[in-house]
């Protein structure tokens, strides 16, 4: 690692925030992502109907084009799907499930990977070798293949897809954290802490870990985009979430059956939302990397 000797990113949190906010791309991405977050988590409050409450859904309203009116006078701004559900509401609820799966799997993988990476960097020796062998092995398999195998075995479910996504992501975090922790561990401030006879655990958690955080933040953002995309793919194949918890991927899959008959909105609209989320998270991660300058 030749770049590893570069000085750490300088600047206080306020300085970094200012640099981040100066970048129009970063601000737009943040706003878009925040808007989807609010829309998704506020879905029960702002959605015109609860698309999974059968009393509110009328099968006679099925397959209406965007902007049509229902018998009761409600306007379906984004049309309805094959069961007469309002697409706008279905998308809002779908955003929530996609975000929950992405966030939960990302955070769990981050936590697990960080622990493994710190242990490897701290213990060195055979523990390090063994853990990194496992990481190498895990990373040598394509993510989609591992996720596919796990979901075939486990079946559908929110908890199951989160588990599968954690399994395919943790190794990334473990490798990154180990790398950064090894570099940080060789710095003077750690030496100084050792000179003060601080305990190993305290040095690890209080001194090394905080300095790994910028890198972890960037990797976590990028991985979240990947997790959302992978969840959508698996749900599209009918392997991820159960039909009772339709994420954006499942909505797209439902609409796929109607695509050939020209009813594009059932599939395309949730897809556009998915696209916007993935791109905004990716841009966000990209800008964060520029600002925080971690050695990736």
């Amino acid at each position, binding site marked *: 690692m030749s770049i590893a000797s570069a000085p750490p990113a300088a600047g206080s949190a306020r300085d970094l925030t200012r640099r981040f906010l100066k970048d129009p791309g970063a601000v737009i991405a943040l706003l878009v992502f925040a808007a989807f977050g609010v829309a998704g988590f506020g879905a029960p409050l702002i959605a015109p109907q609860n698309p999974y409450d059968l009393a509110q859904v009328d099968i006679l309203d099925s397959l209406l084009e965007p902007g049509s009116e229902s018998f009761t006078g409600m306007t379906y701004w984004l049309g309805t799907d094959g069961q007469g559900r309002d697409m706008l509401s279905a998308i809002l609820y779908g955003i929530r499930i996609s975000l929950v799966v992405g966030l939960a799997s990302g955070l769990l993988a981050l936590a697990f990977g960080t622990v493994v990476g710190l242990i490897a960097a701290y213990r060195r020796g055979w523990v390090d070798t063994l853990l990194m062998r496992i990481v190498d*092995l895990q990373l*040598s*398999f*394509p*993510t*989609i*293949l591992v996720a*596919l*195998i796990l979901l*075939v*075995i*486990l*079946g559908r479910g929110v908890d199951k897809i989160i588990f599968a996504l954690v399994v395919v992501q943790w190794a990334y975090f473990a490798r990154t954290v180990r790398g950064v922790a090894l570099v940080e561990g060789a710095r003077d401030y750690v030496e100084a802490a050792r000179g003060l006879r601080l305990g190993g655990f305290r040095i690890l958690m209080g001194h090394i870990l905080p300095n790994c955080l910028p890198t972890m933040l960037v990797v976590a953002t990028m991985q979240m*985009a990947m997790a959302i*995309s992978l969840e*959508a*793919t698996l749900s*599209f*194949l*009918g*392997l991820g979430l159960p039909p009772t918890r339709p994420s954006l*991927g499942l909505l*797209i899959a439902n609409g*796929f059956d109607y*695509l*050939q008959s*020209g009813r*594009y909105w059932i*599939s*395309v609209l949730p*897809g556009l939302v*998915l*696209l916007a989320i*993935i*791109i905004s998270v*990716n841009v966000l991660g990209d800008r964060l990397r520029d600002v925080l300058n971690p050695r990736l």
Partner: protein
Amino acid sequence: MTEYIIRRVLQALLVLIVMTMLVFFGVNVIGNPVYIFASSECDQACLDAIITDLGLDQPIWRQYLTFVGNLVQGDMGRSFTHGVPALHLIFERLPATLELAFSALVLALAFGLPMGIYAGLRPYGWGAKLIMSFSMIAFSLPVFWIGIIMILTFSVQLGWMPSVGRGDTVDLGFVEVSFLTLDGLHHLAMPAFTLSLIMMAMVIRLARAGMREVMFTDYIKFARASGVPERRVLGAHALKNILIPIVTVLGMEFGGVIAFAVVVESIFSWPGVGKMLIDAIAVLDRPLIVAYLICVVFMFVTLNLLVDVLYSLLDPRIRLGGGKA
């Protein structure tokens, strides 16, 4: 040298054994396949007969041993739904998947290399920015979404492209291929392009990074100074050197492409192994699911092993352990 290869082969075998266990035990605890066979008037005796017939009355470890024993002899059991050996089904469907994957590989190189080289030569022009944005989009967008948009645009709206199946095939004696007929090519274009996007994005990035590094080396300067025409400097000297990492990465990614073919085959109803897997999962055809997963894992482990061994033959630092620790 020999020691390194032996160690690497043993490691690959260990991975294979662990994966067969994971897949076999995992798949065999889900659902109850007996009901696929049982008709509605099937009584207990008839159910028991089916269970014995499928070998499901044995303890699971004995089922596993039987499975491994048969596996070594190339027998992966019979598909529950098709009633023919699972391996036979896979070999029947595999050519379609391989054709799709290789077409994607060719497309990725044919489009990705020129784009990456261009972006590497003029890294600050608007052309390079456009190419790099394309690469980022191709890399981060879900493949299935791109496939859907292509079907919507070219099949539904414009009506130019067929969205289902393989089209006319030509029998080459041992294998049937689509790419030799006009109709087959017509059917192949969209799925192959969709599948190639991730690889294409990777080729663009690697070629660009390679070009930017290579163009500042002494041998390029020397070639230019000695009056070698620019075409030859790029085509012969630079290209050769950027190809090494690209070939390595593509070799290791090929297993991933086969796995991703599941998605593309489902969207375009391409009759390959991936589509078969999704159908098998829907009806809980355990032997077929297990056979598919094991074949893909086997293919993947073998590819990785080959890349590693080839690399160690080319680069002594790796086999002597002097590379990354």
